[in-house]
């Protein structure tokens, strides 16, 4: 790629917004280890796809990294014990999900020793075959740590099948407040670079690019130092939301655009997050499954914001406590970033693999005054159209969804909406545009599911009708046979008596 096209590629990127970063709150203090909480609540579903299948019972003693839930399907990921201890309960526990619905959760009481399960430490992980690396990544329960939580091994296998030329490692971290990837790159750059090389080896990628936003100069410097002498190239991209969207990152770095409703693999690109690269390295070199992650704890309501290395299953309340507690009653608790994260009903939910941040925001930060006003009518100012990174028409789609015309919304490209929230962010009328899109996507998925279900039940009904018809037929057949037999027997009897009579007569 020549320099000119790289220059223009960043201009071609459409949409996007520039929210106030507020990363300085948490960017400076180094990553601290969260003191082991008294109880860990590990949900069995922490990823996209089928939930993991439970493989322990209450009372079991587990070691750190021991399997507690096996992969539950083709698209699924296993779950491991985040510390050594005893399984004290298995059952429903509030999940870190906007609905706050309970999900199947394994509760572990750590014994405080934090003893690792015996692991397979490799001196030269590059001697492994790509297939073996994928298998180990899958067994380590690694999912996309940027927030998508798609099982990484599935992505690696798909990439090998479709032929990947370029691996892009996403250090965009465009969400305001979040600094976990930033800190990770500053402190563990060597490990990340090794992880990148391992992923590239597994996916068969020749080119390795790391995209980092220009508002993280220390991370860029650290990564450049670590990547020196390797084929990993560090690229600086302009800070803008949503730069961390994989398709945007691809477009800016390679100048190629992923087709609508398509996957990045179609244009020969594989994207992974920097935290995923770190987790892959841990899993391959040290045989350690994914049992902890770095979480940013921030927001003006938090006494000492910072980044914590958190065992999966620690409660949000534990994290807040480790950061000095709350200064004031937060107006809103958010899991993830403020743009795409989900609101938490309370602090009694566990951290999962996809939790990148925990924010306790004050009323001033979220603009409570504004939030209390009900949305005003759309004035068709088209701010949302300019902000949409996917090049869609948010106002039109929302209007169609409001009028219950989902198919028109799909025609306008609803399926290409990434729910980044740029449109809602810029809307002067405070229309909850993303809420409309999330609702419509959920509705469409539910309709799709219902269709599959109807087809399945129709097949059941048809086969039952067939069976009933067969039963009736067989019964008639049997009855006819019986009648015929009886008739034959009677005929034989009659013939016999006739013969006897004849004999008598004779």
């Amino acid at each position, binding site marked *: 790629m020549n320099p000119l096209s790289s220059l223009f590629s960043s201009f071609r990127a459409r949409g996007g917004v520039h929210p106030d970063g507020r990363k300085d709150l948490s960017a400076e203090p180094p990553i601290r280890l969260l003191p082991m909480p008294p109880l860990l609540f590990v949900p069995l*579903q922490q990823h996209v796809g089928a939930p993991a299948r439970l493989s322990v019972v209450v009372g079991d003693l587990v070691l750190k990294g021991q399997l507690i839930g096996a992969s539950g399907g083709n698209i699924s990921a296993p779950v491991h014990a985040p510390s050594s201890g005893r399984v004290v309960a298995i059952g429903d526990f509030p*999940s870190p*999900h*906007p*609905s706050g*619905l309970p*999900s199947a959760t394994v509760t572990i009481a750590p014994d405080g020793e934090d003893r690792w399960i015996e692991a397979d430490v490799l001196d030269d992980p590059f001697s492994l075959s790509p297939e073996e690396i994928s298998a180990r990544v899958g067994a380590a329960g690694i999912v996309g740590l940027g927030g998508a939580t798609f099982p990484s091994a599935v992505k690696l296998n798909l990439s090998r099948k479709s032929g990947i030329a370029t691996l892009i490692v996403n250090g965009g971290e465009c969400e305001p407040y979040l600094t976990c990837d930033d800190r990770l790159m500053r402190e563990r750059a060597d490990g990340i670079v090794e992880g990148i090389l391992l992923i590239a080896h597994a996916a068969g990628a020749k080119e390795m690019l790391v995209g980092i936003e220009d508002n993280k100069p220390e991370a860029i410097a650290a990564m450049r130092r670590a990547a020196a002498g390797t084929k990993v190239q560090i690229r600086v991209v302009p800070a803008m939301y949503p730069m961390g969207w994989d398709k945007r990152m691809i477009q800016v770095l390679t100048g190629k655009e992923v087709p609508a409703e398509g996957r990045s693999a179609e244009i020969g690109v594989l994207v992974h997050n920097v935290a995923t690269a770190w987790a892959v390295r841990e899993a391959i070199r040290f045989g350690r499954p994914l049992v902890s992650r770095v979480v940013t704890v921030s927001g003006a309501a938090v006494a000492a914001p910072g980044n914590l290395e958190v065992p999966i299953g620690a409660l949000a309340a534990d994290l807040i406590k480790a950061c000095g507690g709350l200064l004031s009653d937060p107006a809103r608790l958010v899991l993830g970033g403020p743009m795409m994260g989900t609101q938490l009903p309370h602090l009694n939910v566990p951290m999962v693999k996809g939790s990148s941040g925990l924010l306790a925001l004050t009323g001033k930060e979220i603009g409570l005054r504004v939030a209390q006003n*009900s*949305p*005003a*009518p759309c004035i068709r100012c088209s701010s949302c159209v300019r902000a949409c990174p996917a090049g869609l028409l948010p106002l039109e789609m929302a209007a169609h*969804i*409001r009028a*219950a015309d989902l*198919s028109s919304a799909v025609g306008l490209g609803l399926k290409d909406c990434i729910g980044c929230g740029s449109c809602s962010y810029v809307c002067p009328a405070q*229309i*909850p545009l993303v*809420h*409309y899109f*999330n*609702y419509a*996507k*959920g*509705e469409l*998925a*539910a*309709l799709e*599911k*219902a*269709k599959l*279900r*109807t087809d*399945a*039940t*129709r097949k*059941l*009904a*048809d*086969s*039952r*009708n067939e069976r009933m018809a067969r039963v009736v037929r067989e019964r008639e057949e049997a009855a006819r046979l019986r009648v015929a037999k009886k008739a034959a027997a009677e005929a034989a009897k009659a013939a016999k008596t006739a013969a006897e009579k004849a004999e008598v007569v004779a």
Partner: protein
Amino acid sequence: MFIAIFSLTVLGGALGLFLGYAARRLKVEGNPLVEEIQAILPGSQCGQCGFPGCAGAARALANGAAPATLCPPGGREVAALLAAKLGVEVNLSEVKNAVPRIAEVQEDLCIGCTKCYKACPTDAIMGAAKQIHAVFREACTACGKCVEVCPTEATRLIPVPVTLQSWYWSKPAMQGTPA
């Protein structure tokens, strides 16, 4: 006057013959729409729509004698497909009010009479004589036939429980209409 009567009669007759010939040439065998509609309906022949089976309902739909929202087990999805097929508009939010339901056997009341599983059009109830019956959630269309036949009122229809997999955002509250 006779010319007028004669010529109009001839004209009418000729046009009538033409239409008769055309009707014969362009004859439509049955109504293909009925079959297409029947393919959309669940096919469980539950009769909740008030027509004898799904075939009857399909005929009624094709003739416009029944609304596209007639099928309770099919729910919104079937209603939407039917509306698209028939080219009519339905208020899907109305259908939504009938929350998707599912059959449930109350174990303390079930006497294991097997009546419900014999009645189930989709084989969604499992059981044997003198054994407590259970419902396969995935196969139940909430047609209510099991409820009708149960001698102890042990089967009932309950709303489908919301799980983490099926939950999604509700529709945003309607904005205030502009003044």
